[in-house]
């Protein structure tokens, strides 16, 4: 079986399991005939599975794009202050204009995520290229500072509960009508695929890409937009999941190299599969209770991250 078929089959299997697992009893025979079974399937199970797949895939793609524009393998939206900046924007809208519509809130969150990430990139440009690990280090602390500001504001305005929702990913609240924004993130990921070749060239650096006729500045701007929009959508609908965008592209890159045209679909599929597996695990460990996917992935993701850091690289 080819690699593509294998990936598709694996993801499909996980989707089936995700649809089948849950506290309510889903009778397959009842689908299409029994109103209750249809309700369960189309209002709860299918939207949840779609939300998980979209989140995993788009976060992984956003992480990969982030790594290209920062030219560093160890960055992603949660190690660059992007998620915290989006949460800051949402918090500000909630405080200053509580009646704002959802699209307006999304817009503000996207803008603050964009600004926060742009500042991070400006800091990164000043760092010596010989120290690749300094970049995620600075990013984590940078995110921590913004996060401390968000916590302070939230504490003073009694909005800490909202912040907990935005910063810890959880899918248990996903129903039809509550996750559709994620399809926009999916569309943004498709845009990333359209420009995959140019991103591959941009990953070689400013001189190389200008020499090959690709506007480096435009690619960085586009990448920033993709990362900020995806992060804002995910933060507002399900909350941040740490390290998805970091570990998935690195694992895929270890196996398949760095040609984005070839690897991007696998990055998306692996991201979706990994988050889906963690979500299913979170639903099963303490059945009938649920453990948020952010918690499960926090363990899985940081363990893989540690392995990436400590294991000797396969290629020189």
């Amino acid at each position, binding site marked *: 079986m080819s690699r593509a078929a294998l990936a598709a089959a694996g993801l499909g299997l996980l989707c089936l399991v995700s649809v089948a697992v849950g506290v309510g009893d889903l009778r397959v025979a009842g689908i299409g005939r029994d109103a209750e079974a249809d309700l369960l399937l189309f209002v709860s199970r299918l939207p949840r599975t779609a939300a998980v797949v979209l989140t995993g895939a788009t976060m992984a793609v956003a992480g990969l794009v982030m790594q290209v524009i920062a030219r560093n393998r*160890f960055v992603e939206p949660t190690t660059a202050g992007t998620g915290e900046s989006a949460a800051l924007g949402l918090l500000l809208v909630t405080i200053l204009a509580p009646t704002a519509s959802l699209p307006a809130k999304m817009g503000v969150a996207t803008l603050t995520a964009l600004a926060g990430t742009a500042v991070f990139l400006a*800091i990164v440009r*000043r*760092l010596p290229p010989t*120290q690749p*690990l*300094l970049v*995620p*280090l*600075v990013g*984590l*602390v*940078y995110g*921590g*500072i913004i996060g*401390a*500001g968000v*916590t*302070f504001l939230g*504490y*003073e305005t009694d909005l800490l509960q909202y912040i907990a929702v935005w910063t810890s990913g959880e899918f248990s609240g996903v129903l039809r009508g509550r996750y559709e924004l994620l399809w926009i993130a999916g569309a943004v990921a498709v845009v990333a695929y359209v420009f995959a070749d140019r991103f591959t060239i941009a990953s070689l650096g400013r001189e190389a890409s200008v020499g090959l006729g690709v506007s480096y500045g435009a690619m960085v701007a586009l990448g920033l937009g993709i990362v900020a929009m995806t992060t804002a959508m995910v933060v507002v609908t399900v909350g941040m999941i*740490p390290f998805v965008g970091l570990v998935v592209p690195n694992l895929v890159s270890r196996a398949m190299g760095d040609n984005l045209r070839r690897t991007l679909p696998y990055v998306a599929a692996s991201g979706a599969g990994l988050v889906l597996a963690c979500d299913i695990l979170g639903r099963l*460990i*303490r059945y009938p*209770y649920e*453990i948020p996917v952010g*918690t*499960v992935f*926090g*363990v899985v993701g*940081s*363990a893989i*991250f*540690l392995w990436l*850091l*400590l294991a000797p690289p396969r290629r020189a």
Partner: protein
Amino acid sequence: MPDRRLVLLALLLAAAAAAFLLIGARGSWSFLLAFRGQRLLALALVGAAVGVATVMFQTVSGNRILTPAIMGFDALYLLIQSGLVMALGATAYVQIDPRAKFLAEAAVMMLAASTLFAALLGRGRSDLYRLLLVGIIFGTLFRSLTNLVQRLIDPNEFAIFQGAAFARFSNVDTGLLAAAALLVALGAGYGWAARHALDVATLGREAAVSLGVEHDRLSRRTLIAVALLVSATTALVGPVTFFGLLVASLAYVLFPEPRHGLLLPAAALIGATALVAGQTLFERLLGMASTLSVVVEFGGGFLFLFLLLWRRR
């Protein structure tokens, strides 16, 4: 004749303590002094322990950015705590004497921290940034595992444990004060006894070994002492990430000479003064009870970035 800077710091601490006890005091003095006195002792103890632990840790790890808290010591303690709850069962856990529990947790912590971090420090000595990043990610891993374990214990009682995730200077657990003081005395006492060896260790591992200091043994024992100190502070107030970094950096500014006979007491005094004065300021004067920890994290984060970006060696 003690160093004049130390005397000055001690006077500052006394002033902060007096302000903490007296500002806004009303009602029965005996109750007030007993109540505030306990909290004052706890805050001073935590501040001093964090300061001493950070200086000792930075000396044996050979850098001035890394602190026990950034490496995930606090998170490890919380993980051990919730792991113990899971192993014993929540009901049994509640019935045990809290002091016995605390000492048992500290013992496990000593063992775990000294093996894990001694291995990490030995391996990462040459590459500070990798060590830092690994430490931070270990912290994330411990925190996620703690979350997971807490959810596994009983999702309905989850909220009981959730309070431990934030540092709480305004709500110190004074029941453990005596046991914590014992651990701090042990840990800081080791640091004092080893102060001359620590002076030599600042020269670096090779130089220290050639001068007759067994660096590996010193680091392992220092890590055990640091684990004791961190157990005490985390049990009393919860995790504080960047406070130790702030205190230790201040101590280095005031005492540029690498003499631990001065550095350790200075760090202890600065830490205690900072916590007591900060809590007085925020609680009594500004009326914002729980924000000191947030301000400390904010300022400490900036200092960390500064050290990382502009003061690289």
